[in-house]
C-alpha cells in the first residue's frame, strides 16, 4: 500500500498545478479537467511504490496528457462526474478585461486539436523542451515541431485572439 502521508502530501502539493494543466488541456472544461486529475492521481496511487522515488508529478502529467490526447481512449471515456460548482468561479474581482480575455483564450484553445493543445500546454505552460514534449506525447520531434507551428498559426489568426496575434519569428 502506498505510504498514506507521502501520497497525501503529493496530492496536496500537485493538485493545483495539475488542475491548471487539466483546465488548459480541456479548453476550460473544469469538470473534465477534474476528472483527468482524479484519474491521474488514481493511477499514481496504484503505481506509487514503483514511482514514488522518481518523477511522480511527471507520471501524473503524462497520464493526463495521454488520456486526453489518445483518440481511442476517448471512445471508452469514463463516467461523467457531476459537480455542484459552476465551471468558472467568480472571486468578486475582475481587473479590466481579465475574464473576457480568459474566456477568449480558452475559446481559442478549444479551436485547436487535442494534440495541438497538448503541445502548446507542454511547451509554453509546463516549459518542456521540444524533445521532452515529444517523449511525453510518444511522438517524434518533427511531429512536435510541425504540430507546434500549426497550433501557433491557428492561434495567430484565431478570431478570439485577433488583436493579440503571435508573431511568427517567436515560433521557437
Amino acid at each position, binding site marked *: 500500500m502506498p505510504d498514506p502521508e507521502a501520497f497525501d502530501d503529493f496530492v496536496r502539493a500537485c493538485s493545483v498545478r495539475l488542475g491548471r494543466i487539466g*483546465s488548459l488541456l480541456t479548453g476550460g472544461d473544469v469538470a473534465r479537467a477534474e476528472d483527468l486529475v482524479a484519474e491521474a492521481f488514481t493511477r499514481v496511487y496504484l503505481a506509487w511504490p514503483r514511482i514514488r522515488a522518481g518523477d511522480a508529478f511527471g507520471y501524473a502529467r503524462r497520464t493526463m496528457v495521454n488520456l486526453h490526447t489518445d483518440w481511442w481512449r476517448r471512445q471508452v471515456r469514463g463516467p461523467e462526474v457531476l459537480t455542484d460548482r459552476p465551471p468558472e468561479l467568480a472571486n468578486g474581482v475582475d481587473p479590466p478585461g481579465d475574464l473576457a480575455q*480568459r474566456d477568449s483564450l480558452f475559446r481559442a484553445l478549444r479551436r485547436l486539436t487535442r494534440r495541438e493543445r497538448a503541445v502548446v500546454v507542454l511547451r*509554453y505552460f509546463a516549459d518542456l523542451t521540444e524533445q521532452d514534449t515529444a517523449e511525453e506525447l510518444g511522438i517524434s520531434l518533427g511531429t512536435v515541431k510541425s504540430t507546434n507551428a500549426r497550433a501557433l498559426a491557428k492561434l495567430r489568426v484565431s478570431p478570439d485572439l485577433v488583436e493579440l496575434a503571435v508573431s511568427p519569428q517567436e515560433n521557437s
Partner: protein
Amino acid sequence: MRNIDDLRQALAAESAGVVIQVSPERVRRRARAVRTRRNTTVVGLLAVVAMAVPGVLLVGRPILAPGSGASCPTSAATGEPDAKPSGEPGTQLDQSIGTGVLIPVPERHTQVEVVIKLVGTVQQPAFVVGFCDLNDSAVRWPTTIMYLARAPDGTISGKYDSDPHFRFFSSQVALGPDDVLDAGVYAGSASRVTVTSEGRESDAATAHSDASGWTLFWVWRVAAPLPPGYNSTPVTYTGPEVLTLTAYDGSGRVQDTVTGGFLVGNQVQDPRDNLPR
C-alpha cells in the same frame, strides 16, 4: 498577445483562477474500485481456466491467455505476502511481484514491466509471467501461465507418476542478445537462489510464499537466451547455453540444484513478439 512570452503569460494567468479539488480520500476510493473491478476479472478468468484444465495435464507447455486486465502489482521489490500460512490444499495463492524489469514497446508508445505471480491453490498452483503496461497499470499483454502439479511431499510432480519430482520451475524472458530475465519457483524454502549459465553465477531476488511453502525468484542478468524450444524436443539439449538453478539454506549450504531439463528456462511470449527489434 504579441509573442510567445505573451502566450506563456496568458496560459499562466488564464489557468490561475481554476480551482480543482481532488481529495486523497476520493483518489483512494477510486483506486479501490479499480482494483476490485480488475481483481474480479482476473479471478474469474483464472477460475474458468483452472476448471477447464484436467489435473493430468497440469504440467505441460505454457498456455497463452489473452490480456487479463489485472492491475499491476503495487509491491515492487519484495511482493506482498499471499494468504495466511496454512499449507491447506485449498488455500488460495495470490502473490504478485513487479520484477522492475521494463521493456520499451515504442510501437505502442509505452513500456511494460515484467510481473510474476503465483496463483491458483496450494494443491494446484500456477506460475504466471505477465506484462504490465505502465501507461495505465493494466496487465493486458499476452500472459504465460504454467500449471504445476504439487506432489504430496511438496515438490512439483513429473509428467507421469513414475517420473521423479522436481524442485525447480523457471521461465526465461529474452530481452536482447545478451540480456535475459530468469524467474521461477523453488518448491521449498530457500534463503538464497542463484542462476548460472556460461560460467557466470547471479544471485536472484526471492520472495517466500507462506501458504505454499515455495520460494519465488527472479533475476535480470547478462547472458545469451536459451534457444527457442530447447527443452521441448525429444532430444536432450546439452548447450552451449545451459541454465543451472541452485537453492541455498540459511547457512549457505546447497539444498537443491538442477541443470537444464524441461522445467527450466521455459520460453515466455512477450509484447514485442512479431514486432521488429
